[in-house]
Structure formats: structure tokens, C-alpha cells
């Protein structure tokens, strides 16, 4: 994986989180934000300022679709859903992330400098 700069890393990881969150089923933006926070035990908080642009970006790319529906408490909300392309992208990004994490781990766990 090429070495992205910080902003891209932020965007890319956020996109991946969102895709994963929606892989369990359609949800509105608020739910996505809450789940990410919950699942990471409050380690990661998604700034709302970046979440909604992320959702719309993913929709522009055709990885998500949206529609206005009634929420749990019967209020109109915009629900997002993974498309087939989104699902494929999720798998691909997931695999990339795993490789990245493993490689990082290897470097960080190294006990001595390589020859």
C-alpha cells in the first residue's frame, strides 16, 4: 500500500469504518456515529463534521445509496445502505488494512535492527 499522508489516512480509515458499520444493514448518520464510538469503546470518536461529508462522498462514488425513511421513533431520516460495489470495496479495503496492520506490527515488534 502506498504511503498516504495524514489527511488521506484519516479519510480512508473513516470511509472503511463507515462501510463496515453499514455492512450490518442500513442506518442513518447518527447511528453510524454512535456505533463506531460504541464499538471502539470510546477510543475513536467521529467528528460529525467529517462523518456526513464522508457518507455523501461514499454515495457519490456509488458505494452507498440513500433514501429518506422513518426512523425508530417515526421521524424522517436519511438512511444509507451498502451497494454491491460498496460491499466489494469493503472486502478489498479490509484486506488492505489487515496487511498494513500486520506489517506495522512486525516493524513495531522487531527487537533488533535488521542487517
Amino acid at each position, binding site marked *: 500500500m502506498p504511503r498516504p499522508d495524514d489527511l488521506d489516512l484519516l479519510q480512508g480509515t473513516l470511509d472503511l469504518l463507515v462501510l463496515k458499520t453499514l455492512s450490518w444493514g442500513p442506518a*442513518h*448518520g*447518527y447511528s453510524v*456515529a454512535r456505533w463506531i464510538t460504541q464499538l471502539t469503546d470510546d477510543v475513536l470518536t467521529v*467528528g*460529525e*463534521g467529517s462523518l*456526513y*461529508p464522508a*457518507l*455523501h*462522498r461514499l*454515495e*457519490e462514488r456509488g458505494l452507498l445509496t440513500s433514501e429518506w425513511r422513518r*426512523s425508530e*421513533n417515526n*421521524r*424522517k*431520516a*436519511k438512511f444509507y445502505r451498502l451497494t454491491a460495489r460498496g460491499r466489494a470495496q469493503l472486502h478489498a479495503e479490509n484486506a488492505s488494512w489487515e496487511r498494513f496492520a500486520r506489517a506495522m506490527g512486525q516493524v513495531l515488534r522487531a527487537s533488533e535492527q535488521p542487517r
Partner: protein
Amino acid sequence: MSWRRIRHVVQPSPRAEARAEIAFHLEERRRELIASGVDPADARARAAAEFGPIEPVERAIADSTHRRHDRRQRTERFMNLTQDLHFGLRALRRNPVFAAAAIATLALGIGATLAVFNVVNGVLLRPLPYRHPERISMIWLSLRNDDGTQADLPLTSGFFSDIERDARTFESMAAFRAWPYALADGPSAEPERVAGARVTPALFRVLGAEPLLGRTFTPDEGRPGGPSVALISHDLWMRRFGGDKGVVGRTVYLSGAPFTVAGVMRQGFSFPRGAELPAPFGFGVRTDIWTPLVFDSTDRINYGTNNLSAVGRLPSACGEPAHCASVAQAELTGMLRTFLAANAPRLKLDYRLVSMADQASAAVRRPLLILLGAVAFLLLIAAANVAGLMVARAHARQRELAVRTALGAGRWRVTRQLITENLVLCALGTVAGLAIAYWGTTFMLRLVPGSLPRADDVALDWRVWGVASALALLFAVLFGVAASYTAAWRGTELAGTLHTGDARSAGGVGHRNMRRLLVAGEVGLSLVLLIGAALLVRSFVQLQRVRPGFDARGALVANVSIPVTRFQPAVDGPGWAATFQQVMARLAAAPGVAAAGATSGLPMTGMFEAGGVRPVGRTYDPGQAPSAQYSVVAGDYFTAAGIRLVTGRLFDASDAADGGNRSTIIVNRRFAREQYGSETAAIGQEVSPTFELNPGRPPRTIVGVVDDVRNVSLDAEPRPQVYLPVAQYPYPRMAVVVRVKGGPGADPRGAAPLIRDAVREANRSATVHDIRTMEDVVSESLARQRFSMTLIGIFAGVALVLAMVGLYGVLALIASQRRREIGVRLALGASPGDVVRMMLREGATVAAVGVAGGLLGALAVTRVLQSVLYGVSSTDTPTFAAATLFVVAVALAATWLPARRVARVDPRSALAAE
């Protein structure tokens, strides 16, 4: 599909949507906070604070939504468009005849119009390729003859020197004359003839022409004794010097004398281009080499030899070019009046200023505009035909469209598809039209090689593209409207169509009449064109029947030029005369030659000169002597050219005796009659030409009278003419005429090598060029008339074909519409003959209306042709009658076919149809 539309209508704007989404988030957070015990009053504020600035987020996601919508719309539209195109092409393929007819008609109309406009644009509309050409004016002398006619004369060096020195209303002024040169690389190398001009150095300033390499002439080079420099044209530079930048400074030999090349002119500059010279096109349509025109002291007081063209630039300070020109005219007229008052008070001479644009194109303006009018007719006919085709097709598709609508196609969708179909047709037709326009322009220019002024200026520019776009747009709109019209029908006739099962009767009458009217109009317009073409053909035939005074058959002509850098007949004259006499002697002795001669003024080539010829014993003021065209002849010119001797004798050896000191002259019948009352009375009389090379020469005796010759053109009356023998009046440039044995039918071209050999033996440095038959010369002089006749004839032919196709179409349509009715009639006992007669009556009515309209139109319109017709009036009855009969006959033939087909209809099948 309609659900989506409702959603589109009801859906909020992206901005509102964004706001709602964020509002939902904030509301949820607020609830969550309240649920976890936060004070309701604070919860809202905390939720907002946690979110952060709302505005940028709102904007970001609204933009994202916008982009998404746009992209979706674009994709949709593109998909629809490709689908429409696909259907459109398929529909056209299902109806190839219709498509082909529509495209061909459109292409012909657009192509012909564009081709003609392209030429008109180049010759009449585009500004001349000089700086501020509207300020440049040609300066001519204008002489009013006693018989009231007026002739434009070139200037004399005396007059030019005067006005160049004194005129204040011109910013700059220059004089020039054509001077063909024999260009060679060395003093004895084989020369190549190039069209040249001698010009005063100011010419380039007058025209605003900058050189590409080197420089133009300095004022010093225009003074006597100045250096011999030359400028070459871009064409010549590329052609002969290979574009070599080192050509400046090189020495070339012009007619045997060395000249230094001082510069190369830019591409496209080749002034004078024929029209600006006193004998238009006698000297070719472009100039390739320029040398300085130098006046010495004798030139400055020579008021008798009219051989200079002059051009001047009006200053920009004096305002409108027209106003400026009239001020300049007034000044020149005043100067001349002062001069004449002192020297020749009874001479009715004046200056005449002609703007450059008029000079360049006046001669062909009328014919070209007539051509434009004719092609406009063709365009109208083509448009009417296409409209008719569209209407017929629309009608035929009623059924299909009704069914489509019933199956749920949106009305806008159907309309849009029809428009696309029609636009495809329009596009194909326009593209084909452009191809025809290109080919048509080439064809037109090739019809008149060398006779069309400014042919070099014909090129695609913004005006041509503008007209092309306008035409394409016009037809596109026409087609689009036709499409909507078609689609609109559907709505009103839907129910009726499907119920009665007769898609063709409801509303048929209205548009049937419109089609009839369209076709009648087409017939009328094509009749007008046909009459115009017929008149031109008759005029051309009349011209060809004119007896020119000489016999063009069986004679070969070649221009022979002895290179001359300074016209010094006193010094070089005997040499020139000897050359031509030798050439004549050799040719006369050659096998197969019946007679050989030469002349300095070959008829129909503009090579003649004019001057005063004063009968001795009568007094005339200077410049008031009777004017005559004069030429120098050698050998048996009159016999070779077939010019009849009326009385007296032709030139013979006695005229060459005494070293050329005899003084004899031959005149034509008009001169003899005008001056002496009859031909025989002229013999033995003495005259004094004002253009004698040697002013001290004794008067000349008239020894013979020959027939009048049409020197200028076939349609101009012959003027008084006189001839001098070359031994007494040497000239370096003559046209050799050789008549071959074998009578008028013999092919004279075999004599070409004889001429070349004879000239080479007599004078190595002389050049022989422009070898052609005398018949070619006459034919070339008719080039312009042939041009008009050919083109309008073509337009008339195409128009007639289109009109007849239209007529056939409308009658076939009527026949198919009335099938049922005809079936009923036949079943009730009508004979096939009756049915045919009924159809014929239909066709005849339409044709009759068209012909009537066409005749009226022709009577009004053909008077425009009068100025280009010869020997035929523009309302010539036999021509009108013949053309009308022809159109009626063709119309009846076009009616006959559908009539016959209808008559063979089986009554039972006609009734059972539908």
C-alpha cells in the same frame, strides 16, 4: 416512471435536504443527552456545540448531493440521446427511399448555395488583400467621344507626373504597367516567361504591402540611371528558387539584362491581377516580378501615349472614403481643366476615380449576383421538396405514432425522438451538402480559368461558415418544427385514427392542399430557372453566330516576345522588324502552311492599343483627332487571319523597301466610311497617326481597306481600326497567326513546332508561349457567358428534376389516399380511362397553377438578365413558350405514372383495404 417524476417535483432541494439531515442528527443527540440526564435546556446547546460549525458541513454535503444529481441527469440524458439516435437511424434504414431522397435534396440545395456563395464571397465580399483597401482608388482618364460614348483610358506619363507632383488630396500615388519578362539565370540560359510589371516605388506604400524578405524599391531606384533591382512574388520564389532565403541579392536576367533581387513579396500579393490593367486579362491574372518604372524628362511631357495604370491612396484624415474620393475627384478635375484650357480646350477629357473593389469585380458582379439569385431559387425548391417529403412521411406514420401513444409512450418522448430523427437527417444532409459545396466551388473555378477576377481570393472564411451554419440551422428548425407538427397530430387524431381504421382520411384534406401548393410553387420556380437558362443559351448561340470579321477556323496562334528592358524602337526597332520578317518568311515556306502573319493586336485578347489618326488636310486640336485602334502587322496577316480585303491592296514587299522609310497604312471599313464617306474614297488619302514612333515621319498613304474586325469581344461593335506594317513600325511583341492548308476543317495544332523552330532560328532570345488555336481564343472570350449559361442550366435541370419528383410524390400520395374512392368508382362502372383522366386532371391542375405563377414570375425576374443577354430580349416569346411547353410535358409525364398505376387498381382489393 411517473412516480419518479412526482418525486422529483416533491423532493426538497439539496440544501434543504442537508439541513434536514443535520437537524435529525442534532435532535437525536439532544434526546440522547436528555435521556442520560442532561437538563433539556442545556441539551440542545451541548448537542450543537459537539457538532461544531454547521454551515460548512451543510454546504459540503449539499454540494455533494448536487454533483450526484447532475451526474445522474447527464447519464440519463446521454442514454436517452443514444437511444434516440439508434432509433432514428433504424427508422431511416427502414425507409431508405425517403431518407435518401431527403438527404440528397437537402445536400443539393445546401451544397449548390454554399458553392455559389463561396465564389461570390471571394470575388465580391471579401476585402481586398491590401491595407485599408477602401481608401485605395484607381485613377483613369475618361474621354467622351463625339457620339456620346465614354471610354476609360490609361494615363500618360505626362499626366501622371503632373498629378503625382501636384495633387494634394492623395496621400500617395503610383503608376504601373504590365511588362512580361523572360526570366533566366544567366545571360544565355533558356528563359522562362513570367508575368511582370513595372511600377513606381510608391506602389507598395499605396497598397500597404510589406515584403517577406528584403525590401521594396527605394525612391532612388525610381529615378533615371538608378540600379536595376527586381522584386519577386512568393509563388515565383517557391516555384523557381525553391524558397531559398539567400535569393535576396542574387542576380537574375530579365529579358537579357541583369537585375538584382532586392526582396520577396508575401504570399498572396500579386498586384496587378489583371482587372487593374487597361486591357483586362490580356495580361494574365497575377504578377510575379516587379521592376521600377522610371520616368525621364521626355516621359514627363508625353501626353500622347496612354499606357499607364495609376492608383492612389486617399488619406485617412479626410473622413469617409466616398467623401474623400469626391474631394480628390474635384481636385483632379480642376487640375485637368486648367491644363486643357491652355492646351486642348475642346477635348472632353476628365479623370475618373474607381475604387479598387469596384475595379476588381465590377465586370463580374452582375453575372455572379444573378447566379446567386438562381441558386436561391434552387434552395427554395429543395426546401419545399423536403418539407413535402416530411409531411408525407408524417402522415404515413400516423398509425405507428397512435399505437405508440396508446402503449404509453410519453408525448414529449415521442416528440423528442421525432426531432432527433429529423436532426439526424438534417446532419447527414448538411455534411453531404458541404462535400457538394467543395466540389462545386472547384468546378465553378475550373469553368473560367483565368477569367474570374479575384479567383485567388475564394477561400473559406467566417462569412461562408456563417452562411453554412445559418442554412444548417434553418433546416434543423424546419425539420424540428415538422417533427413537432407530426407529433401534435397524434393528440387530436388518436381516437379517430384507431376507431375508423382509416388513418389517412381524417385531416388529410388540409395538408393535401398544402402539399399541392408546395409542389405548384416548385414547378413555378423551376420554370423561372428554366426560362432563364434557355434565354442564356439562346444568347450564347447568338453570340457564336456573330461574324467576327476574321476566320477563326484552321488557324494557330502563338505569342512571340523579344525580350526588351527599355522600349527603344529607334535603336532596337530594325532588329525586331527583321526578326518577325524572318519568322514570317520561314513559316510561309514551311510545308502545310497556307499563310502566315503576325499582329500586335490579336482580336479578343485585349492586346490592341488606341491612338489618334489625323486625316491630312483637316485641322484638329491636340488630342481631338479621330481615335482608332491600331496594330502592327507582319507577313500575310490578313490572309492568315481570314480578314477580307474590301478594296485596294494588302501590305507587300514594297512597304518594307527603303529600310522601312515608306509610309503606308491600311484602314478598316468603319474608318474609311467615317472619314471619307466610302471605302474607295479612302484609297490614296493621307493620314498622320499621333502615335508615330518617329514624330518627323511623313504622313501615311492609305493603300487598302479591310473588313471590320471585332477586336474587343463578340458583343462589342467594331471600332475604327488601322494597321501598320512592322517594317515601318517595329514592335517586340506580336502574335503569330498560321493558317494551315486543308481548309477550315484542318487541325492547325501541327503547326506548333514550325512556329517554335522559325522563331528560334530568327532570334534565339525570343520566347514563344500561349500556343493555341484561334478558335480557342474566341472560345475563351466567351468564357464568362459560358460560365453563366452552364451553371444556370445545371440549376434549372436540377430544379426541374426536384420539382417533378415532388409532383410525382404528391400525386402518388393523392392516389393512395383516394384508393377507396377509386375502387368504388370502378366497381360502379367507371372505366380505367375515366380514372386516369381524373388523375391527370389532378396533376394538370397543380402543374397549371405552378406554370401560371412561374410565367408571371419569369416576366418580372428575367429583366435582370437583360444586361448579360445578347441578341435576345428578356421577354423573348419563343423561349418562354418552349420552356413552358417543356415543363408542361414533363409534368404530364410525371402525372402519367401514378395515374396508370391507379387505373390498374382492383376494385375489390381497394374496397377491402383497411
